[in-house]
């Protein structure tokens, strides 16, 4: 024991770190910040450490070459002891990190912690969020499978829309004119050296400012931040009602950190690693590329935006959001901190959460994508064929063979790109059906060139039978007078 303390003293005589570490860990924090609401920042840090460790472990086996990366992931999954578990930890760790960083940001926003004098802490935090998302995207690329390959194509297609510089940005991003070996190598450099290096630097800065400026006190309605008086008020608060961070508050951080690590490990054990999906071979086109969960909302947005709005939204949207986040502490650097007195802040968070949640949920089943196999894989349900004529059955056949089913569902099966047709005859008359089939319109292609008159007649005859039993189909009232029918 004495030897250890002697060695410790010997080291500290040279390093002189014990005093600053003691000062930092015992700095007084307002008592009410020792709350379960204040644990997300340290949890993000812990998951980041987990990512560093598991990332280095993966790099022991991973080969950043377009020809070999996929095989090295297979080796990790199947050949190397616990390789699958390290991959799963890293993959689930990234999901948790994005989620925890977002929750941390939401808490900081709702507690008004970005206000004077912690503006720069918030700004550094915004950059940390962007880097975390950069890590998430580049990490998805390193899992060099079909999703990664086509995901890069999507990234390149978005980048190409930048005016003037677009093509140059694409070549810079891909490292050449196509997605190939150079692309993976540069994303490897980004994911393993550039962004983590910046992350470590910015995390240190972020932490340093938390120590120097003190943790944000628990917001009280009516306790208003004023630049002139805040610092004195905060110091009085910590003097009067403060407690040393260690051990007064730190135990909650430690408990939550352990819980988060355990949750990551449990997910890794239970669900296993992510992919890799099919080989990154661009000649295999039977693939439905999808991004990882943190970019699903974007995948949905790209499908639901009107085409004319897409490029401006893609190019201007992120700039507006990032600028808004960066300017936030300057636009409302003073005033109320409590969320009880900031209804717009609460509404903003709720609206953002509901929007992102809805888009993510929609992207889960992608109703805008045609079901590529519905025409051959989902037969017309029998109830739609009861008591039909030969012509109408022929029409049902046309309906399947011409892949109408890929976009239109019948009896809840089939694509959802277009409206379900279970009761289309209630909405459209015979003439309207013919017009819609031949000329298309709305989001529907025109089938005029691909249907013979006989096929059109049969198809429309079938569509006219699609109405619920007790309800009459739509009809053109003028027709019986005009045509004497």
């Amino acid at each position: 024991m004495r030897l250890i303390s002697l060695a410790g003293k010997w080291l500290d005589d040279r390093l002189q770190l014990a005093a600053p570490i003691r000062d930092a860990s015992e700095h007084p924090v307002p008592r009410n910040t020792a709350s379960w609401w204040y644990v997300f920042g340290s949890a993000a840090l812990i998951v980041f450490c987990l990512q560093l460790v598991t990332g280095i472990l993966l790099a022991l086996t991973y080969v950043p070459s377009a020809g070999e990366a996929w095989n090295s992931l297979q080796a990790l999954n199947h050949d190397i002891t616990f390789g699958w578990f390290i991959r799963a930890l890293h993959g689930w760790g990234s999901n948790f990190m994005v989620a925890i960083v977002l929750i941390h940001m939401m808490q900081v926003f709702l507690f008004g912690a970005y206000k004077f004098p912690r503006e720069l802490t918030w700004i550094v935090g915004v950059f940390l969020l962007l880097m975390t998302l950069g890590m998430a995207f580049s990490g998805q690329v390193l899992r060099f499978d079909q999703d990664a390959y086509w995901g890069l194509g999507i990234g390149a297609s978005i980048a190409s829309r930048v005016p003037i510089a677009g093509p140059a940005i694409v070549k810079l991003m891909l490292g050449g004119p196509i997605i190939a070996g150079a692309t993976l190598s540069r994303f490897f450099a980004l994911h393993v050296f550039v962004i983590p290096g910046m992350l470590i630097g910015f995390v240190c800065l972020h932490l340093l400012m938390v120590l120097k400026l003190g943790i944000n006190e628990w917001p009280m309605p009516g306790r208003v931040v004023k630049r002139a008086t805040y610092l004195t008020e905060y110091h009085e608060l910590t003097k009067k009602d403060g407690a040393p961070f260690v051990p007064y508050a730190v135990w909650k951080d430690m408990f939550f950190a352990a819980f988060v690590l355990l949750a990551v490990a449990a997910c890794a054990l239970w669900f296993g690693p992510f992919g890799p999906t099919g080989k990154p071979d661009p000649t295999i086109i039977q693939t439905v590329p999808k991004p990882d969960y943190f970019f699903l909302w974007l995948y949905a947005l790209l499908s639901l935006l009107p085409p004319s709005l897409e490029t401006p939204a893609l190019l201007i949207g992120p700039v507006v959001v990032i600028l808004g986040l960066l300017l936030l502490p300057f636009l409302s650097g003073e005033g109320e901190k409590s969320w009880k007195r900031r209804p717009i802040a609460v509404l903003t968070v709720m609206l953002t959460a509901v929007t992102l949640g809805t888009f993510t949920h929609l992207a889960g089943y992608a109703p805008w994508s045609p079901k590529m196999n519905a025409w051959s894989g989902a037969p017309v349900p029998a109830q739609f064929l009861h008591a039909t004529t030969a012509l109408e059955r022929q029409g049902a056949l046309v309906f399947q063979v011409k892949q109408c089913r890929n976009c239109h569902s019948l009896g809840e099966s089939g694509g959802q790109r277009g409206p379900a047709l279970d009761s289309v005859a209630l909405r459209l008359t015979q003439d309207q059906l013919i017009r819609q089939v031949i000329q298309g319109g709305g989001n529907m292609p025109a089938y005029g060139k691909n249907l013979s008159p006989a096929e059109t007649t049969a198809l429309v005859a079938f569509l006219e039978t699609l109405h619920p039993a007790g309800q009459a189909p739509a009809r053109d009232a003028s027709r019986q007078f005009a045509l004497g029918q």
Partner: protein
Amino acid sequence: MENDTTLSRRGLFMKLGMLLNACVGAALAVPIGRFLLSSITRGHANGYLDWVPLGPVSQFPEGETRLATFRNPLVMPTDGKTVDTACWVRRVEGDRFQVFAINCAHLGCPVRWFPQSGLFMCPCHGGAYYRDGSRASGPPERGLFEYPYKVDNGLITIQAGEMPTPGPSASLVGKEPPCA
């Protein structure tokens, strides 16, 4: 007491030292910058756009659209399978062809051809195109990208080497996108 306007010997050396480092930094920045930007500045000089064969014309029946694959003209040793690319070849009649890029004009996902309905459909966001590549529906703002092609001695070749993207570089054949 030191006057503001005088420059001490050490101060001069410090400034000279800074200047020296700035010069060395600037000199090093040139090769570093050119290395970093090489994928842009290399441009067309290296001949990465080149004519690549798709196969004999007889492989492509008239009036039909078939999948073909080609190898990118520029291959690096670590590229693996990524340099093999697919494309859709439509033989209109005789030596008249249309060779469509596999990439959707919306965000580059691989489109699939459905001969029965005469449509190309994209699995990502539901873009659809007619058999001549023109836009039918969905989010794409233009028709499918086309590669320039040549027919020589019964062999069809296309000019390839760059992944088409919907930005300004996208119009491979340099014509206005066909309208739906």
